[in-house]
């Protein structure tokens, strides 16, 4: 299937050419990952980690090598630019996905709720892919460290299970025997493997249970060891999306679909009820799958999953780990800022079903009383209740204190960080590699020059201008917000100029004055919704694929459906249930 719109691939090329033509070549483009004024963390548009090679020695991306079936076959959705539009969606490639740390921990918490805080996860953070998400299929491997940390985690749970076995396995009190161990496999084992165990697996794990019982002479301890074995099993650690041959396609089985639904839309393994539905073969039509996805997104776990997407997409959670040298109150408010943004997302995206337009232009926020005082807003009826933002003091997600403070320096605002975020995350541009020999960016000079003047002067030096001219002008629109996210009338004692413009592919999209005007005009650009939908599919499918989420994409771009409905619609895509083996 040929992408209808390859404009963004072209735009990157054009930008690179433009950059070179502007004399920056490899030198002046301060960008993500290293310049003195960059966010550093986020590589750019969801271009598909697979395209960049590597992958720990494994083939990257979703295409699997396999003997091709006879006849003409469809091609699987390819690793690539998830922002491109396609005429129709395509099936995926078979995959074996290692669960992310979040998915592993959520699963264990859901399967062993009675254990509470009696165990602690020893799992390290996962690698963040080029997309900015930490659930990328190509990056998640079981390294030596993973094996060790998983074993530690499993030991903690195994010990907790042994210590509180009566709650986990009632038959342990009345009939602590092999039959009871079998019941454990049928209940807990089924949850961990997300399917019933095969006969061979039952035999193997019961054999291990016998070994443990003989060695320890203690039934609870033996069940503890059995628990550890199940948790360390590849059947728990990996999600299978392989299916079996059905014509020219591979059709995922019911349990594979149940797992995919649960992890994609609730961030955890399937519930007993969902497994039961799978056992009855009820996870069939796209309509049923979409309804199930919507129901999962409506649960607390689903809400948390949506917050997880925005955490990674925006990065506002980082606010709780930063400090602001000149704003004493900030340390006591940063946790509240994070909660404010979570409540804002909950209200606009989840409760109101909003999409990009509502998210970026909503004229509300959800502060605490202390935050409203800090911002200079009217106090809410209660902490995190909705208040209307005062006119002229910002709108939407990007006016949130947590976002503005994160996209700032410790001692000043940052037009570069703020502009760069939009340049990458809303306009889906790629940022060039940081060059060596970056000229100095002068420290803030309150009263002498505004931040904008300083950036304009310093980034006009040498080879900086070629790239910074792409995103700094976008960031100038936020200059009425200081490094802690507060509205300010003046920068020091100097007036603030927020009149600027937005370029795309070297062409001016529009001129604006101030954050509200910037946001209002930005959301009218189709690329913004198109770009966000690419990030949503990348997050949902755990890798950047082209042509994977087209069914409801135009509806999303047109503003007919919001973030939650678009996410749920992905369950009805061919990619969700079908796989194609690469020829």
């Amino acid at each position, binding site marked *: 299937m040929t992408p209808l719109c390859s404009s963004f691939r072209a735009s990157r090329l054009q930008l690179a050419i433009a950059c070179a033509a502007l004399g920056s070549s490899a030198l002046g483009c301060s960008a993500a990952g290293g310049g003195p004024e960059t966010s550093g963390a986020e590589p750019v548009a969801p271009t598909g980690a697979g395209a960049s090679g590597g992958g720990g020695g494994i083939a990257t991306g979703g295409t699997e090598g396999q003997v091709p079936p006879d006849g003409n076959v469809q091609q699987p959705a390819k690793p690539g630019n998830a922002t491109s539009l396609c005429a129709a969606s395509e099936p995926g490639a078979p995959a074996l996905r290692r669960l992310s740390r979040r998915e592993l921990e959520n699963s264990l918490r859901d399967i062993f709720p009675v254990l509470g805080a009696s165990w602690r996860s020893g799992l390290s953070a996962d690698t*963040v892919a080029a997309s900015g998400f930490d659930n990328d299929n190509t990056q998640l491997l079981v390294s030596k460290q993973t094996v060790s940390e998983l074993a530690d985690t499993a030991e903690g749970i195994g010990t907790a299970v042994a210590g509180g076995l009566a709650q986990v396995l009632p038959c342990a009190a009345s009939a602590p025997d092999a039959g009871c161990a079998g019941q454990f496999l049928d209940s807990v084992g089924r949850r961990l493997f997300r399917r019933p165990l095969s006969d061979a697996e039952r035999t193997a794990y019961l054999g*291990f249970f016998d070994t443990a019982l003989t060695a320890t002479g203690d039934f609870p301890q033996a069940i503890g060891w059995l628990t550890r074995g199940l948790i360390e099993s590849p059947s728990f650690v990996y999600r299978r999306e392989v299916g079996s041959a059905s014509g020219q396609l591979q059709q995922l089985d019911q349990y594979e679909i149940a797992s995919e639904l649960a992890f994609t839309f609730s961030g955890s393994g399937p519930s007993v009820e969902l497994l039961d539905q799978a056992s009855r073969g009820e996870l069939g039509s796209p309509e049923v799958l979409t309804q199930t996805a919507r129901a999962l997104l409506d649960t607390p776990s689903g809400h948390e999953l949506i917050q997880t997407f925005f955490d990674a997409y925006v990065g506002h959670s980082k606010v709780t780990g930063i400090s602001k040298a000149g704003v004493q109150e900030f340390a006591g408010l940063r946790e509240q800022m994070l909660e404010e943004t979570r409540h804002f997302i909950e209200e606009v995206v989840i409760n109101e079903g909003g999409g990009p337009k509502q998210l970026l232009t909503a004229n509300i926020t959800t502060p605490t009383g202390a935050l409203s005082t800090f911002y200079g807003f009217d106090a809410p009826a209660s902490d995190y209740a909705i208040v209307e933002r005062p006119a002229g003091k910002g709108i939407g997600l990007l006016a949130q204190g947590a976002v503005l403070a994160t996209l700032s320096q410790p001692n000043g605002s940052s037009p570069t960080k703020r502009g760069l975020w939009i340049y990458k995350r809303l306009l889906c541009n790629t940022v060039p590699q940081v060059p060596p020999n970056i000229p100095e960016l002068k420290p803030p000079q309150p009263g002498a020059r505004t931040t904008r003047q300083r950036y304009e002067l310093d980034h006009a030096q040498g080879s900086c201008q070629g790239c910074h001219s792409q995103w700094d002008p976008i960031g100038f629109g936020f200059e009425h917000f200081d490094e802690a996210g507060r509205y300010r009338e003046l920068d020091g004692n100097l007036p603030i100029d927020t009149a600027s413009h937005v370029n795309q592919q070297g062409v001016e999209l529009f001129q604006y004055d101030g954050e509200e005007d910037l946001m209002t005009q930005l959301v009218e650009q189709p690329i913004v919704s198109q770009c966000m939908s690419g990030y949503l599919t990348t997050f949902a499918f755990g890798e950047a694929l082209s042509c994977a989420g087209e069914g409801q994409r135009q509806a999303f771009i047109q503003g007919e459906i919001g973030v939650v409905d678009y996410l749920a619609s992905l369950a009805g895509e061919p990619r969700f249930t079908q796989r194609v083996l690469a020829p």
Partner: protein
Amino acid sequence: MKEHTRVARARRGIERRLFLKAVGLGLSAPIAWQLCHSAVAQAQGARPKRLMIFYMPHGVPPEHFNPVFNPATPNEFSLNQSGVSILGSLEPYKQYVSVLQGFSYPGASTHQGILTMLSNFGDGRTVDDTTPRTTFEHVIANGLGARPLLLGAIPHRPCGIDTDGKLMWDGQYVVPEKNPLVAFDRTFGATTSSSGGAADVNVQLRNALTQLTEGQLGALRSELNGLTTAQSKLQIHLDSIQSLRIGAGAGQQSCDSVPSLPALDLIRQQSAGQPLEGDPCGGFFLDEANFPAIVDAQLQLAAQALVCNATPVVAVQMMYTNADINFAFMGSPGSHHATLSHTGPGSTGSGLSLETRVPFANAQKWFMDKLVTNVVAALNVPDPADPGRLVIDNTLIYCCGEIGEGAWHTSRTGKINFDNVTPPAPFSYMPITLIGGGGGAIKTGQVLRVNNDPAPDANNAANTKDRPAGDIYLALSRAMGVEVASFGNATNTLTEILA
């Protein structure tokens, strides 16, 4: 000093652990026991050797870093100089110090050198954060059959690992432990259960469980035959399990007890009840407000692990590259990367004065002072495993950073036009400092310059007369008793630092 009760590290205990390890390898009990006696006897005849990697990000201002010396007498040098003297606190330990100049990393002349510096792996052009590699500390640890202690004070951004944090690799990238309390328990607490019948049962069942998992992996591989990506993943998984079976042994700890570590106690108090890392993606150990306290705790733990021989290999990562932690806490306000490291010297260096980069120099000196106070001084004590010598006599500390010149992002030696700096410091080198006697295998107390090119080109890897840092790693590997053929393209052991 308050004493924690810890297990005695007696000869019998050492033999027992080695025995359990051998059983883990699948050897029969009598053979395993025989091997253990042999290993202990060998260990008793050799001097203990310890290695520590100390990573400090964002380069240095060379006018405040380079030692003062006459190239004709490289053994006579001063670490105190007219600038801030980043290495100044090492002056009392100068007989243990070697400053190495004229080496290069295969970085891409940016902070992404963090990906390549300890493995000497990379082509100097592309940013590759996925291809498997093994970094120096793991080469040594694996060679010694030991598990290294890997610590990181805010070593990556909240919410996950990106390119800027990936310093250490053992095939795949390895995340250093952020929480020194967890690391302490793992380092000193694990051996408390290594005696008695329960330990034997644990080893037996651990091995049975590993066999079971290997069997399940094998079955899955058969089932997915032909799916190449899945096969590769499962092979990495299998290799990981098998390598841990081999390397599961604890060190031969030589302390009868572990003293209380004040910085660790402070962290314990401060972090009590606080959300830890991953909650949701920040937490105490990724909060920059806690950075100074975390640094102290990790360095004290590192030193204690070395003193007690809890592991022969320790690595400590100070922050990630591009970290914008505010260094106001030590008197240099501003973010470490954006503000401090990029202050001066402009694009040419012309007009720079010695005062220009004092805040940045002080920040880098803060790191070195922390290393000296918490580690070097702590190693300057009798070696419990080698009576008559000091721990520092039997230790190697490799101090390094991913770039040379802080503002210019150099990955190799460069010439800088610091015309207003007195005394002149015209060259910028990768900041490499060796501390410690390395068990007698290292020649210490010198400034070793291997590139005397009067006009080095920092911007062109093809023109450099530097030697690859891998040459140093080859020499240090030999000093540690681990022979390695190459690190990346480096095959020429730096014998000049070997005793």
